[in-house]
């Protein structure tokens, strides 16, 4: 009898611990990618040693994920509305081409050319938004179409020609602004990395503290409920896609800093990579759940895996294999959380 009682209490204790952990994760789902990130850094640190566990290597990861991280913020706000944006990479590259061509070919001051590039990104983002909100084209299809259109414009306009780093650094160094770096110790922070981190902080603040931010979540959660509670759903959706386009244009500018040159061929995989970061970061593809900080962790996890495995001398395909496993695991966890909540 006594034994039984003790067994029960141990069992109950374990159960409450489990449910406590579960509640905690439900309240702060960003803990999952955070722990995956920490443990993957630890594991690779142990396996690879100092070559990985150095300020240089860890900040190198930041540099490598900066573009995907910035585009990931754009992808995050779109996915929070239960949408998806396949045109992010194309918009980023076209914006960078506009910045370059307007300066070099048209002879505009780089400040004006950059402004035009940012407007270009916002414009195509807004088109996505109008297609989704007003014309009711499913986001996947609208942005798939725009991806191809923008990519084609990009190649037609640029003639597939690269603007070299040398031309840029002599004629318009401002375009390479995000390539500037701050060094201390072995750590190197490019302006692109700093911009990404600031953008994540700013967007987290906006999403949690402003009316617009709460509407983004609410629209993704249940658009018809929001319409009935008097939120202008269409305007919210259009603004989200337009701001995503603007962020992509900034990513295009940061891309110039990363590459040094302007290449119409760059950023081809950015849409898939950004969706990967968003999903691993714990944002639900069904909208309304997750955080931009999660996306940053998601992008960093991918960065840690690729650099860690490369330093281990493993075939690059192992990276893809493991990322694939992570994506499926992340979505499985999301489904589990949703089921728990609805029951």
């Amino acid at each position, binding site marked *: 009898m006594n034994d039984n009682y003790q067994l029960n209490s141990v069992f109950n204790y374990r159960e409450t611990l489990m449910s406590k952990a579960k509640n905690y994760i439900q309240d702060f789902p960003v803990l999952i990618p955070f722990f995956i990130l920490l443990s993957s850094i630890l594991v690779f640190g142990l396996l690879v040693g100092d070559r990985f566990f150095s300020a240089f290597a860890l900040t190198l990861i930041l540099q490598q994920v900066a573009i995907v991280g910035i585009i990931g913020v754009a992808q995050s706000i779109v996915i929070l509305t239960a949408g998806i944006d396949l045109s992010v990479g194309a918009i980023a590259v076209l914006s960078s081409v506009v910045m370059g061509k307007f300066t070099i070919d048209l002879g505009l001051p780089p400040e004006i050319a950059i402004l035009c590039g940012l407007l270009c990104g916002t414009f195509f983002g807004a088109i996505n938004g109008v297609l989704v909100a007003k014309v009711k084209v499913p986001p996947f299809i609208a942005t798939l179409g725009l991806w191809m259109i923008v990519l084609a414009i990009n190649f037609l306009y640029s003639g597939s020609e690269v603007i070299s780093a040398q031309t840029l650094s002599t004629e318009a160094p401002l375009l390479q602004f995000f390539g500037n770096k701050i060094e201390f110790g072995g750590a190197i922070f490019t302006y692109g990395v700093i911009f990404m981190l600031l953008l994540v902080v700013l967007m987290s603040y*906006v999403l949690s*503290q*402003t*009316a*617009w931010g*709460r509407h983004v*979540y*609410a629209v993704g*959660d*249940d658009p*018809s*409920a*929001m*319409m*009935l*509670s*008097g*939120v*202008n759903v269409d305007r919210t959706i259009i603004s989200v896609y337009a701001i995503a386009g603007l962020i992509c244009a900034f990513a295009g500018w940061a891309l110039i800093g990363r590459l040094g040159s302007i290449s119409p061929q760059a950023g081809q995989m950015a849409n898939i990579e950004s969706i990967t970061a968003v999903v691993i970061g714990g944002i639900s593809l069904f909208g*309304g*759940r997750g955080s931009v900080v999660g996306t940053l962790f998601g992008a960093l996890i991918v960065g840690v895996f690729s650099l860690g495995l490369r330093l281990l001398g493993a075939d690059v395909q192992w990276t893809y294999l493991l990322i694939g496993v992570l994506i499926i695991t992340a979505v499985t966890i999301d489904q589990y959380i949703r089921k728990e*909540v*609805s029951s």
Partner: protein
Amino acid sequence: MINPILTAHGLTKRYGKVTAIEDSDLDLFPGEVLAIIGDNGAGKTTLIKALSGAIQADQGKIMLEGNEIAFNSPIDARKYGIETVHQTLALSPALSIAENMFMGREILKTGLIGKVFRKLDKNKMRKIAREKLSELGLMTIQNINQKVETLSGGQRQGIAVVRAAIFGTKIVILDEPTAALGVKESRRVLELIQEIKLRGISIIIISHNMPHVFEIADRIHVHRLGKRLCEINPKDISMSEAVALMTGAMKPEKIKENNR
């Protein structure tokens, strides 16, 4: 004679070939509780959606306090002080109670940061939400920051009704507010409706629950086949007669004969 606060005249709404309401009328008098009853598919929900701006009628007109008005969206109806608790409740499960109560009309910080960046005054929103919930006796909810998805069906219904009560200055419309609730929770919602009525707000309620209808309604609007069949006083008629009217088993002319 008192003039109605809200009248609908000849409202028609078609979805393709399906006619949801046709030439439908409605009168709501100040300070009364008007119950709308009717069989499934009679067009009750369509009618109140037209009155709350959620849909736009193809024909007909709506008059509020004698002036003709047109609602292009729920936002318009709210501006006139008409609040609606829809069947779906229109709550966002992943957001908190306070956030849901102020959805679409958030309280912003004063000054530049509120005006330009639309920064929320979260403390003020929480404070008001807490006050209103306890005022209307719904303080079984411990935490105003709780997500709505963690609440029971009755609590959710309560939040939706309280939200309507806070912002509805003229009319509160409720679509099946007790349909999904247990006995105790239904009771609480009915009490809430009485409290809203005491504030002088007119109420339209759709319900299938005859005991509830007969308990709280001052008048009953019977809706049948897309239009108003008749208006009855619950004191003049029994529940089974009301059901007979709804289903077409009895003609409205019969009521008067029976009463004579």
